[in-house]
């Protein structure tokens, strides 16, 4: 097997992991701080992608679209928090799941009603459209490198926000004991809205970044939502660090599984059945990973608030 192929697949794993991190950071933050299960997280991803596609097609600038995706998703998140989620903190998880599931249906049909059922067009910006030569060794999509870069920036930014700032301190305090922090005079309602909007904005950013690589259509967030849940369960629900580690792990196992499993099976099966069985196995690889990790560490790799 050529070394370049292996290296390219490692980069692919890293890029996929970064995108999963953008998606799951908000989800885990919202769960950790507010104890809320938010199924509508995938919808915010879709809102980001649609906002980016529309602004990019109106202005011709992908970068403005990217900014718009952050703002639109964060605003949608804030509205949802104030209008619906706020009434759910005291309820049990089943109510939260039902209400946020309803939000998925409402947002999806509203988006279809506004923009139609046909996928929208969104392409990568011109300067990132051509692959670049890495070390004179092989060509790799410059846009995927850009996603890796954005993921790293967000990871560092979140770390700084949570660990080094006053807002981060309140977020951590709110996760540990929300009555106490409210009693100390912190406006917990505004804090929750802020955290929710932050998570939503990150999901929207992920949607816009990936919308340029994939298809911008109604329902695009559903499959990503499941992956994001796998990531935060593996990483430990509520922990940003866990989400980062979980996302990298899922990215690696999924990409390498798709790459190596069929090759491995081809050593002792016919190419046809190796392709078919390998395909089936690699699509469940991350769920097997999740099951194994839950057996060994039932609370995930990094337990929350650590």
């Amino acid at each position, binding site marked *: 097997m050529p070394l370049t192929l292996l290296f390219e697949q490692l980069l692919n794993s890293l890029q996929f992991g970064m995108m999963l991190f953008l998606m799951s950071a908000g989800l885990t933050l919202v769960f950790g701080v507010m104890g809320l299960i938010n199924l509508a997280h995938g919808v915010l991803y879709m809102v980001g992608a649609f906002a980016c596609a529309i602004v990019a097609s109106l202005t011709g600038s992908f970068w403005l679209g990217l900014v718009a995706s952050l703002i639109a998703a964060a605003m949608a998140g804030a509205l949802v928090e104030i209008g619906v989620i706020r009434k759910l903190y005291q309820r049990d998880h089943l109510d939260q799941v039902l209400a946020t599931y309803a939000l998925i249906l409402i947002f999806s049909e509203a988006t279809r009603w506004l923009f139609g059922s046909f996928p929208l067009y969104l392409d990568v910006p011109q300067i990132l459209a051509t692959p670049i030569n890495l070390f004179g060794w092989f060509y790799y999509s410059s846009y995927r490198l850009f996603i890796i870069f954005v993921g790293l920036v967000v990871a560092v930014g979140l770390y700084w926000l949570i660990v080094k700032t006053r807002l981060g301190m309140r977020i951590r305090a709110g996760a540990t004991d929300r009555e106490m922090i409210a009693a100390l005079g912190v406006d917990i309602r505004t804090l929750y809205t802020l955290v929710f909007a932050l998570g939503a904005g990150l999901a929207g950013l992920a949607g816009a970044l990936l919308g340029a690589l994939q298809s911008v259509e109604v329902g695009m967030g559903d499959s990503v939502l499941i992956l994001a849940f796998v990531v935060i369960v593996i990483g430990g629900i509520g922990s940003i660090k866990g989400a980062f580690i979980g996302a990298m792990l899922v990215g690696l196992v999924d990409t390498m599984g798709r790459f190596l499993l069929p090759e491995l099976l081809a050593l002792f099966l016919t190419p046809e059945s190796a392709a078919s069985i390998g*395909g089936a196995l690699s699509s469940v690889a991350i769920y097997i990973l999740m099951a194994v990790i839950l057996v060994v560490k039932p609370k995930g790799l990094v337990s929350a608030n650590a």
Partner: protein
Amino acid sequence: MKKIAIAMALSAVVCTAQATPVKVGMITTLTGGGASLGIDIRDGFMLAVKQAGNSDLTVVIEDDARKPPLAVQIADKMIQLEKVDILTGIVWSNLAMAVVPSAVAQGKFYLSPNAGPSALAGKRCHQNYFNVAWQNDNLHEAMGSYASNIGYHKPYILAPNYPAGKDALVGFKRLFKGELAGETYTKLGQKDYAAEIAKIRASGADSIYFFLPGGMGISFMKQYTQSGVTLPVMGPAFSFDQGILKAVGKAALGVKNSSQWSKDIDNETNRAFVSSFGAEYDRLPSLYASQGFDTANLILSAMKTADVKDTDAFRAALKAADFASVRGAFKFGSNQHPVQNIYVREVIEENGVLTNKIIATALQDHGNVYAEQCNL
């Protein structure tokens, strides 16, 4: 007694003369993922109904949201409460497999405007089941044959890991002569193909054939163009049809795809269809719309010569397929699936809109291999 018999015979004559009303139940996907396909089928179908202006034909439409259990429920309701005579509309093979066998066993007609699973073409074919679109393998067979004819000898082939995906690759390989650089089954609904594209790059392939319907194909094409791999791409029409091309963008230019229909097939019905569809809905029709349009016209043609309550006569009238198809000549094979030409189209830009142009005929009067397993 004699008088009664005469009276009954008379009333029968009167009935055929006035024609009993026909009620069609359309179950199709109008919300959720893949809704654009169902919407096109519905719009094509209703355009033909509107143009015919036949007040004996009524259509009830319901959305299956691409969920098999829901489709089954709707079918039961349509058969038992709405008392429809004909069912149609289903887009997906797995939904068709859930609905069709029981509907035809209850004596209803089912006319498929899209899905053509191999089981319903072969052993489980039924006298009341007609497929107006194609058998699932057909478009893939056509591309396999075309690929060998133009001298590709090492394609890499790719499809999602589900029954229609397997039918697709089996169909491609059936008429392709040569070796494969590799074959991969991806997860259904997968949106990131970086790992697969890297494999293709390293495989030494001379071309790529992929069957990735809906958003999967859009994602693949975009990522493929950015990867710097420049091998020629082939696919069935599904990933390069009118509803999808806009989202794929210029990445699709030059791609060869196989289809039984194209908007530039030169016959009067087709020209009228393309212009009236544009006038009615303000967009170009897709192949799904053409299939819906043909399905409605087939029903209308059968209504002219037979009474739907006389099942045998109506079935014979359907089988005769005496209607002007947008595809030109149209006839059914022994298992009641189309025997038709399948063309190769190329994606071009025309007046600033991406669309397709026929460049070759891949297969002439092509039926399907399952006909011999079907004893009708």
